[in-house]
């Protein structure tokens, strides 16, 4: 058959037009759908569809001899196309719902070597999964977002984030968050997947245990002004331990407040542009919290004064913070970041328990209010596109009123040991300074390889033998650490992070 002649004949030409119009309609329907989904799918589908229609066309030519049946076949195909159209419309509606869900996350696998055998009784070196985070975000509608972020770390499963965010539609400047989320602090909010040192600094880990807390937050973040203000209210007891006389943690329920008191956090930051040089972000935050006393006495930070307090009265936990982050384009990116925090924290004691029958009396433990201070300073330098170097000096003094030489010297002696225990200053009052070094290789956009080394120096106790800590190493060998000497607490970390 002469195809060229056949195609150009009026009768067959008319037939071809009909076939073409069907093909075109089918292709348009499919391609429009595919274009919307993904251009790669579109390319692949275009090729497949072209081949399909070539086959269809050849079959049609072959069957052209049976002209009376053509109209019937076309009717059938028309119905099929209509059916496909309907199905595609439904599929498209379903797929558009899926685009509202975003899944991201990261896994950090690591090997750690602890230089001192005294630090861990199980192993001096081991492989572990530090974090296995998956973040699910669902944008239900413009301005409404649900976030759920579980951490699947083996043996330590936890819901890190679970919150709803409502953005205001009118000024586009305010948002309201309710649920469990990061406390408003620079190092807390800075994701572990981005942080330049393997772990957060000691001061942040001490005052914001677990980083996340349950509460509500109002944020002001105007579009055209570089200020960011956050005001949050929390239960305020997330990650804290409140032991009673039997050693039971009264604050073990993660999802219920331990007391009626609520803690308030307020943070304001400003982004100052430094032109071609870079930018300076600076700000401050304050934490104004209280926790319910479970004891009838409170001991001062210097171990000298015991005051009366009613069971259930508030114990103050207040501190202030100043922060800055300087970013500069000097032979590649460079930043210097710092934060200083000082204030008063509290540890809850317990009331004495009277003897009942044969059960002996248990003396109470006074609440303890410690003045603390700490800071950190990062220097981070990018080396080309693939490498980054970071050093951090991090200092935390949990009790600014007790120096190393006073530890195990200053203490409180109870006048009545049957109702209140004495308390001597100890290891928990020693300051710690850590120099953290890290080198990152960005293998690709998903993988980061980190070598980290922490050099940890604790404040020494003044008198030898005053604070002795026994330990058993990984081989079962017993030993002691005398905190009047330098204790090696250095840690080497090799970490690989996969982020998606």
């Amino acid at each position, binding site marked *: 058959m002469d195809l060229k002649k056949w195609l150009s004949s009026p009768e067959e030409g008319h037939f071809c037009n009909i076939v073409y119009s069907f093909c075109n309609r089918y292709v348009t329907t499919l391609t429009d759908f595919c*274009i*919307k989904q993904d*251009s790669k799918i579109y390319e692949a589908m275009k090729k497949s569809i072209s081949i399909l229609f070539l086959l269809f066309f050849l079959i049609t030519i072959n069957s052209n001899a049976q002209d009376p049946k053509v109209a019937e076949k076309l009717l059938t195909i028309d119905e099929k196309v209509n059916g496909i159209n309907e199905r595609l419309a439904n599929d498209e509606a379903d797929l558009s719902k899926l685009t509202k869900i975003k899944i991201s996350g990261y896994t950090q696998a690591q090997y750690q*070597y602890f*230089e001192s055998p005294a630090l861990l009784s199980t192993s001096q070196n081991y492989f572990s999964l530090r974090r296995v985070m998956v973040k699910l975000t669902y944008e239900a509608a*413009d301005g409404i977002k649900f976030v759920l972020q579980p951490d699947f770390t083996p043996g330590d499963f936890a819901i890190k984030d679970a919150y709803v965010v409502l953005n205001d*539609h009118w000024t586009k400047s305010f948002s309201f968050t309710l649920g469990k989320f990061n406390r408003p602090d620079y190092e807390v909010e*800075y*994701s572990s997947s*981005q942080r330049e040192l393997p772990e957060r600094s000691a001061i942040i880990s001490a005052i914001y245990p677990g980083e996340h807390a349950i509460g509500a937050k109002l944020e002001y*973040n105007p579009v055209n002004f*570089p200020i960011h203000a956050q005001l949050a209210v929390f239960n305020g007891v997330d990650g804290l331990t409140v032991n009673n006389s039997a050693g039971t943690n009264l604050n073990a329920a993660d999802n219920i407040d331990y007391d009626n008191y609520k803690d308030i956090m307020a943070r304001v930051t400003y982004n100052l*542009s430094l032109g*071609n040089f*870079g*930018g300076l972000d600076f700000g401050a935050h304050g934490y104004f919290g209280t926790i319910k006393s479970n004891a009838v006495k409170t001991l001062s930070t210097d171990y000298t004064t015991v005051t009366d307090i009613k069971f259930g009265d508030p114990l103050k936990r207040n501190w202030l913070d100043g922060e800055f*982050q300087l*970013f*500069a*384009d000097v032979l*590649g*990116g*460079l*930043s210097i970041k710092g934060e200083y925090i000082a204030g008063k924290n509290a540890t809850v004691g317990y009331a004495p328990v009277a003897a009942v029958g044969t059960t002996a009396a248990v003396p109470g433990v006074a609440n303890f209010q410690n003045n603390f201070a700490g800071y950190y300073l990062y220097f*981070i*330098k*990018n*080396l*080309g*596109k*693939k*490498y*980054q*170097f970071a050093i951090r000096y991090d200092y935390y003094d949990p009790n600014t009123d007790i120096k190393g030489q006073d530890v195990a010297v200053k203490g409180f002696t109870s006048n009545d040991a049957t109702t209140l225990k004495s308390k001597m200053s100890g290891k928990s009052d020693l300051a710690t300074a850590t120099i953290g070094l890290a*080198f990152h*290789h*960005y293998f690709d*956009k998903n993988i980061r390889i980190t*070598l980290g*080394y922490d050099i940890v120096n604790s404040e020494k106790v003044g008198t030898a033998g005053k604070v002795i800590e026994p330990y058993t190493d990984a081989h079962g060998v017993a030993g002691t650490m005398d905190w009047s000497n330098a204790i090696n607490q250095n840690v*080497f970390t090799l970490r690989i992070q996969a982020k998606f």
Partner: protein
Amino acid sequence: MKSFKLLKVTILAVLLGMVCFAFTAAPERITVKGSDTMVILAQRWAEVYMKSNPSASVQVTGGGSGVGISALINGATDIANASRKMKATEKEKLKARFNTLGVEVACAKDGITVYLNPANKVKELTIKQLGEIFRGTISNWKQVGGDDQAIKLYGRENSSGTYVFFQENVVKGDYASSCQTLPGTAAVVNAVKKDAYGIGYGGAAFAEGIVICKVKKDDKSPAFIPTAETIKSNEYPITRYLYMYLVNRPTGEIKKYIDWILSPEGQKLVVEVGYFPVK
């Protein structure tokens, strides 16, 4: 402990090796990714530049402004083309990854063009009417002086800088749910070309086979189409800059390329493609 000292020395050696690697000469190929609005312009720049600089290699791909900026943050491109400014959230990500705020280079001006089908009676609209049309408040052409026909909306995906700019400056709210999103300005033009009652928006360089809608600031203002004069004089009300973003201040081949784009030769191509020069 001896073995651990050896480990330390090995680590130090590896670190030094990696540092040395970091400073080895970068390949001469320049990668450019981002705005679909700018893709024709960027390809034209690359073609002409490579002709006059045979040793240079410039690879251009589209994907949308958001995609380009993401690639910049991930270190997957040297230059991100964007038809909108970088968002604060994107700057934060750039800070976290590269410790810089990025470098913004305005390389051309564009008048966002509103496309109409030649069969449509409506030839001009105010900014307010356009906003109402794309929000879905006005849904029939007769409400703006046209036929009694439903308005068909065609727009870009939310990764597009044009989508964001048009939303912030014209729509001033959420796009109507009936707005059909398409993966590129060419697709929008094509859709309006086929649909007598369609309306779409995009870059000026793509406006072929359709009618360019005249736009008025308000009821009392005169209507303008985007031309070199009306954009330069800011008479055309939907004008924007087109940007290139880099992680650091450009050096070497990239600096040479950007300097050339901003030179009279590079800016001449801006006009040829259908956009407007920055100077």
